[in-house]
C-alpha cells in the first residue's frame, strides 16, 4: 500500500498540474464567449472589469497554429546584398557583377556573405579595401566593420518589423529571427495579405509631423470628454487616478524640454537657443507648483482649463469620473501642453474610445492621435503619452542623410545630430522658421519617438535634437532617423495565408472526427477486454489530459501535424495496454492466480514497451532537431506523448489494478 500511496500522490499531483495548465485555455474560451455576446458599451465594461484576466488567459492558453486558426505566416529575408551595394564607397561594374553572382549564390548557401564576397574579390585580385575601406584601415578592421554594419542593418530590420507588427494590433503576433538574416512573422487571424505585405515589406515611413496647437488639441479632448460624459453611466472606470504631485510634474517637465536646434556653426541663433531653453526651464518650474494641473505655458488661451482645474479640486472622485471620464484616463500635465498621459493599463480603453465612430466624428479630419513609442515612469506607474498631431507630414525621412547620437561635451547630455539633403534642408528651414517654439514630432510608422520643440530656424540642414534621458534613448532615435530608409530591404520569401473559415472548418472537422474515432476505440476496448478495457480507457483519458497539459505548460503551439503526432501517441497508448492485457491473458490461460498474472503480464510486456517507446523518442528527437516548422510540431507532440504514455501505462494502470486487487475486486480481461 505504501508503494501505491506514493504513486497515487504522484498521479494526483500530475493531474492537478495538468488542470492548472489547461485551465487558462478553458477560461479564455469562456471569457471570449461571454464577450462575443456583449456589444458596444457593455463590452467596454466587460473589458474594463475582466481585461487583466482576459489578457492573462490569452497569454497562458494553448496556442493554435495558423493552419488551425487562420492567419498569415510570412518569412522575410533581409536583403544583405542590396545593403552591400548601397554602402559601397565606390560603385563599378566589377562590384555589381560580383554582387549579382553573390545574389545567386546566397540562394543556395548559408555561408557568411562577407566571406563569399572576400573570396570573390580575391579571385579578381581585389580586396575589400577597394570598395569598403578608408586608406589607413587594414583589411581585418574593414571586414569587422562591414560585418558590424550588416548585423546592425539586420537588427534595425528586426526592430522595425517588430514595431510594425505591434502597431498593427494583432493579438499574439509571433516574431522570430531565424538563421542570421531571416525573420518569421506569424499573424493569427489576419486575412489581409495586401496590407500585411505593405506593412512588412515597405520601407519604414519616417515623418516629421507638427503638433496641433495645444489649446486646440485641448478643446478636442474636451469635446471627446463631453460625448463620453453624456453616457458615463455606461462607462465604468477603474480607480487608477491619483493626483500626481509636483515632484512628478517636474519630471515630466524635464522630459518635455526635448528641443531641436541647428548645429550649423554659422547659425548665430544657437546661443539664443540656449537662453531660450534656460528660460523655458525656468518657466516650467515656476508653474510647476500647481497640482493636478491642466495648465499650459500658454495660459492666455487656456482659460477654461483653469476653471476645469478649479472645479476638479472640489469634486469627489465619483463626480470626477462622471464629469470627466476622458480626463480620468488621459491626464494632462503642465509643461506637456496637450500631451495626454495614459497609464499603461488604460491604453486599450483609450484606443477603444478613440476608435468609436461618434468620437472619430469629433476629431478634426486633419488631426490624429499618436502614441509615444515607450512609457515613462511616474510614481512607479508607466504612462504612455498621447500626442495630438497634424495628420499630414511636413517632411518625410527620405531627406535624412545621416544621424548620429553623441554626448554633447558642453552640456554633457546625449544629443542626436542629423543632416539632411540640400532639398530637405530648404524645406526644413521653411518649416522650422514658420514654427519656432512649436513642437514637431518625429514619427516612425505612426509611433512618436520624440517630440522636440523647435528652437530656431534651421537653415543648413544640420539639426541637433537634445533632451533625451540617456544615451540609449539617443541611440534609438538615431536608429529611427536612419531607418527612415530601411538600410537593408526586406523580401518576402514565403507567405501563407489561411482564411479563418478554412481554419475553423479544418479544426472542427479534425477535432470532431478525432473525438469520434477515440470514442470508437474506447468502446472497442471495453467490449474486448471488459473491465481491463475500462482501465485502459481511463489511462487514455489521463494520457490526453497530460499531453495537452504539458503542451500548455511549454506554451507549445498546436498544429495539424501536431494533431497527427497526438493520434500516433494515442495509438501507441492503446497498443501498450493491448500488449499488457494480451500478456495477462496468456498467463491466465496457464491457470495462475490473477494477481500473479497481472504482475507477470506487466513484467513481460515491459521490454517491448520500453524498446518501442525509446525508438519513438529517438525518431522524435532527430525529427525535432533536423525538421522544419511542421515536422517539429509533429515531433514535439510525439515526444511529449511517448513520455506521458510510459508513465500512464507503467505506473497509473498498474497501481489501479493493485489497489483493486487488494480490495478483493474481481477483475476480468475479457
Amino acid at each position, binding site marked *: 500500500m505504501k508503494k501505491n500511496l506514493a504513486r497515487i500522490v504522484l498521479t494526483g499531483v500530475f493531474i492537478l498540474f495538468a488542470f492548472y495548465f489547461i485551465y487558462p485555455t478553458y477560461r479564455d474560451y469562456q471569457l471570449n464567449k461571454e464577450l462575443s455576446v456583449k456589444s458596444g458599451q457593455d463590452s467596454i465594461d466587460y473589458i474594463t472589469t475582466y481585461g487583466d484576466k482576459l489578457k492573462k488567459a490569452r497569454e497562458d492558453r494553448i496556442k493554435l497554429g495558423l*493552419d488551425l486558426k487562420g492567419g498569415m505566416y510570412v518569412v522575410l*529575408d533581409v536583403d544583405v546584398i542590396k545593403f552591400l551595394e548601397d554602402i559601397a564607397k565606390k560603385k563599378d561594374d566589377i562590384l555589381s557583377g560580383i554582387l549579382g553572382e553573390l545574389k545567386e549564390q546566397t*540562394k*543556395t548557401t548559408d555561408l557568411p556573405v562577407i566571406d563569399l564576397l572576400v573570396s570573390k574579390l580575391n579571385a579578381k585580385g581585389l580586396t575589400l579595401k577597394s570598395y569598403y575601406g578608408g586608406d589607413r584601415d587594414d583589411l581585418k578592421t574593414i571586414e569587422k566593420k562591414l560585418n558590424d554594419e550588416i548585423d546592425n542593418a539586420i537588427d534595425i530590420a528586426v526592430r522595425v518589423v517588430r514595431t510594425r507588427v505591434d502597431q498593427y494590433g494583432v493579438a499574439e503576433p509571433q516574431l522570430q529571427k531565424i538563421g542570421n538574416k531571416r525573420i518569421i512573422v506569424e499573424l493569427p487571424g489576419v486575412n489581409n*495579405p*495586401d496590407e500585411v*505585405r505593405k506593412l512588412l*515589406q515597405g520601407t519604414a515611413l519616417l515623418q516629421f509631423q507638427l503638433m496641433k496647437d495645444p489649446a486646440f488639441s485641448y478643446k478636442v479632448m474636451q469635446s471627446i470628454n463631453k460625448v463620453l460624459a453624456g453616457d458615463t453611466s455606461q462607462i465604468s472606470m477603474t480607480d487608477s487616478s491619483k493626483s500626481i504631485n509636483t515632484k512628478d510634474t517636474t519630471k515630466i517637465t524635464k522630459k518635455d524640454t526635448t528641443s531641436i536646434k541647428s548645429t550649423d556653426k554659422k547659425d548665430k541663433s544657437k546661443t539664443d537657443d540656449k537662453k531660450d531653453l534656460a528660460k523655458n526651464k525656468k518657466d516650467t518650474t515656476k508653474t510647476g507648483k500647481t497640482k493636478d494641473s491642466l495648465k499650459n505655458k500658454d495660459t492666455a488661451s487656456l482659460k477654461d482649463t483653469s476653471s476645469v482645474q478649479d472645479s476638479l479640486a472640489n469634486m469627489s472622485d465619483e463626480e470626477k469620473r462622471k464629469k470627466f471620464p476622458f480626463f480620468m484616463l488621459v491626464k494632462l500635465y503642465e509643461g506637456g501642453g496637450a500631451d495626454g498621459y495614459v497609464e499603461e493599463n488604460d491604453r486599450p480603453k483609450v484606443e477603444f474610445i478613440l476608435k468609436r465612430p461618434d468620437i472619430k466624428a469629433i476629431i478634426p479630419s486633419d488631426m490624429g492621435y499618436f502614441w509615444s513609442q515607450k512609457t515613462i515612469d511616474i510614481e512607479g506607474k508607466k504612462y504612455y503619452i498621447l500626442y495630438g498631431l497634424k495628420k499630414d507630414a511636413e517632411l518625410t525621412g527620405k531627406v535624412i542623410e545621416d544621424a548620429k547620437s553623441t554626448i554633447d561635451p558642453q552640456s554633457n547630455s546625449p544629443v542626436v545630430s542629423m543632416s539632411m539633403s540640400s532639398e530637405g534642408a530648404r524645406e526644413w528651414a521653411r518649416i522650422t522658421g514658420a514654427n519656432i517654439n512649436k513642437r514637431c514630432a518625429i514619427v516612425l510608422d505612426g509611433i512618436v519617438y520624440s517630440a522636440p520643440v523647435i528652437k530656431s530656424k534651421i537653415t543648413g540642414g544640420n539639426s541637433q535634437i537634445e533632451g533625451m534621458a540617456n544615451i540609449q534613448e539617443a541611440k534609438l532615435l538615431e536608429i529611427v532617423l536612419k531607418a527612415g530608409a530601411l538600410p537593408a530591404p526586406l*523580401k*518576402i*520569401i*514565403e*507567405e*501563407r*495565408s*489561411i*482564411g479563418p473559415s478554412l481554419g475553423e472548418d*479544418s479544426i472542427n*472537422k*479534425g477535432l470532431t*472526427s*478525432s473525438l*469520434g*474515432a*477515440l470514442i*470508437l476505440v474506447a468502446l*472497442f*476496448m471495453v467490449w*474486448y477486454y471488459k473491465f481491463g478495457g475500462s482501465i485502459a480507457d481511463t489511462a487514455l483519458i489521463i494520457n490526453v489530459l497530460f499531453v495537452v497539459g504539458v503542451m500548455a505548460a511549454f506554451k507549445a503551439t498546436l498544429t*495539424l*501535424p501536431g494533431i*497527427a*503526432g497526438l*493520434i*500516433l501517441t494515442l*495509438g501507441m497508448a*492503446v*497498443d501498450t495496454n*493491448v500488449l499488457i492485457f*494480451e500478456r495477462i491473458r496468456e498467463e491466465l490461460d496457464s491457470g495462475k492466480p490473477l494477481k500473479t498474472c497481472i504482475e507477470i503480464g506487466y513484467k*513481460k510486456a515491459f*521490454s*517491448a514497451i520500453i*524498446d*518501442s517507446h525509446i*525508438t*519513438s523518442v*529517438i*525518431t522524435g528527437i*532527430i*525529427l525535432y*532537431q*533536423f*525538421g*522544419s*516548422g*511542421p*515536422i517539429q510540431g509533429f515531433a514535439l507532440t*510525439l515526444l511529449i506523448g511517448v513520455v506521458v504514455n510510459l508513465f500512464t501505462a507503467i505506473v497509473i494502470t498498474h497501481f489501479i489494478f493493485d489497489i483493486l486487487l487488494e480490495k478483493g475486486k474481481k477483475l476480468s480481461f*475479457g
Partner: protein
Amino acid sequence: MRILHNTNLDFLGKRKIFYIVSLSVIILGMIVLYLKPIPLGIDFLGGTELQVKFTNQIDVGEIRNEMDKNDFPGMEIKTMGTSKDILLRTPLQGEGQTVSDKIISVLKTSFTNNNFSVERIDKVGPKIGSELRTKALFAVIFSLLGILIYLAFRFQFIYALGAVIALFHDVLITVSAVALFDLMIPNLKLELNQTMLAAFLTLIGFSVNDTVIIFDRIRENIKLFKNENILTVMNKSVNATLSRTIITSGTVFLTILVLFLFGGEVLRGFSFTFGVGIITGTYSSVFVASSIVVDWKNRVHDKFVKGKPKLSTAK
C-alpha cells in the same frame, strides 16, 4: 471474446511468396511513379497557390481559359471536393506579391456574376522549397540511422537491419500505393506536401513499433525454446503476438479511417497515406523484417555449421 487466439500459422515458411508479392507491388508502383509521378506540393516546389471559394458552381475549363488569356498560360487549376472550391497553382513567385494579386484580379474581372472569397494563399520561394526538401530528407535519413543503431544495440545488427529494410519497404509501398490510387481515383488529389510528409513520419514510427514488438517476443522465445530451430521460434513469436498486432493495427486503422472519411480536405492526404502505411507496416513486420532475419540466420548457419541438418538450433 478473443481474436486469433492460439493460432499456429506458418507465416515465415511462405516468406518467399511474400518477397515476390512485395517486390512486384514495389515494381508496379515504381512504374506508375515513373509514368505519373506524385505531384510535388508547393511546399517543396516553390510557387504561388490560391484556394478560392465561389458562391456558385464554376467550370474549371472556363477559369483555365481566362487564365490562359491573362498571362498565366498552362496554370494548374483543379477543384477541391466541390466545384465551388477551386485551387489555382503556378510555379511563378514574382517579386513581392504581385502573382496572387494578379490572379485574384483576373478572377474578379472575369467572373463578375460569381463572387468568391480567397480561402488560402501560399507563396513559397525557391530557396525555402529546396531547404525544406533537404531538411526533410536529412530528418528521415537520420531517424532511420538512429533506429538502426538503437536496435542493433538492443537486439542484434541483423534485426536492426531487417527493421530498417522493412521501413524502406513500407515507404516504397506506400509511395507506390499513393501513386496507384492517385491514378485510379482522380478525385483523391494527392500530392507530396508537408502533411503527407508528416504521414510518412507517422507510418515509420508506427511500423518500427510493430516490428520491435515482434522482435521482442522473438528475443524472449529464443531463450525459452533453446532447442527449436529459428524458423519455429519466429513463427511461434509471430503467432503469439498476432492478436495484439491485429487489435492495435485494427484500432489505429479505424481511427484513421474515420479521419479519412470525416476529417475534411486538409486531413485527407495524411489519413490516406497513413492508412496505407498501417497495412504495409503491419505486413512488413512479419514478412519483411522477420523474414530477413530468418534468411540471414539460415545463411550464417549454412556457412559455419556444415554437415549438420539445416535449420537446426536457434542463434
